[in-house]
């Protein structure tokens, strides 16, 4: 590392500027590609699940495709805070949170993506995932 730094220092700063700019452009392009090409855990309506993890509690798995009427769910965190979730078909929103910044309430607003919702003060993570195939009974049997 140190050798790289001194070796770079020997050259004109312009060369370093060009190298660093190239690195930045590469990173930004790679991120763009990642966003555009990332597999989305949403494609099949029939199989979307939400995994809700809270500190000191077991993960809770909710089948989002089976929801007909939206309902609310209150998650108490170990630290005394809470998050009020609204579970509807295909999505989870945080409608109320005990923390002052309310970042989690503004999450999950990018349409078409299923980014996890994170509430740092209450250590709450809501992830989306596709249900593992064929766990809910038998759909069809062939011989």
């Amino acid at each position, binding site marked *: 590392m140190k050798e790289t*730094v001194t070796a770079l*220092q020997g050259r004109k700063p312009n060369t370093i500027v060009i190298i660093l700019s190239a690195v930045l452009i590469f990173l930004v392009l790679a991120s763009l590609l990642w966003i555009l090409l990332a597999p989305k855990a949403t494609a099949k309506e029939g199989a979307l699940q939400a995994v809700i993890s809270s500190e000191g509690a077991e993960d809770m798995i909710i089948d989002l495709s089976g929801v007909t009427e939206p309902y609310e769910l209150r998650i108490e965190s170990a630290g005394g805070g809470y998050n009020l979730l609204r579970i509807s078909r295909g999505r989870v929103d945080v409608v109320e949170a005990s923390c002052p910044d309310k970042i989690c309430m503004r999450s999950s607003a990018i349409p078409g993506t299923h980014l996890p919702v994170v509430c740092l003060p209450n250590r709450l993570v809501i992830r989306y995932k596709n249900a593992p195939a064929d766990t809910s009974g038998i759909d069809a049997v062939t011989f």
Partner: protein
Amino acid sequence: MKQSSVQKLTKLSLFAAVALAVYGFESLLPPLLPVPGMKPGLANIVTLLLLQRTNGKDTALVLLVRCLLAALLFGQAVSLLYSLAGGALCLLAEFLLFRLLQKKALPLISAFGGLSHNLGQLLIACLLTASPAPLSYLPYLVIAGTLTGVFVGLCAHYLLKALPGNLFPENTPR
């Protein structure tokens, strides 16, 4: 000598107050994108100014004061950890790049600062939630950090031209 150290303390405190005010103002702005925690990082203009005009130690002090006071005034314990991790990584990256680039190309330096700031915060988020889930935001934060970093760097670049050159006489180069 005594006189100049008092002057320096006063000036640094002034910059800490400016950084805090900018930070407070920024937290009132609506988020640019609905990605959680995304901010333009305007308070980093002060960090860049101080890195340019003083040294790494003084800049780190001002940054520390800003983070502590911001957590006391606007935030909570978690946000202190958060902004300290981001701020420290950002300062480290900018400090190293300043040495490498001999105080040129502020927007570039600042872009890397913004990038490392976001990486630091993401790391803390992963540690606190003990889950890799926040990593899904990585590409968004890379792009946001770079763009806001370039903007902040440009702000600092033009602000430096307007500031008197002898602001910190003992550190003035040449």
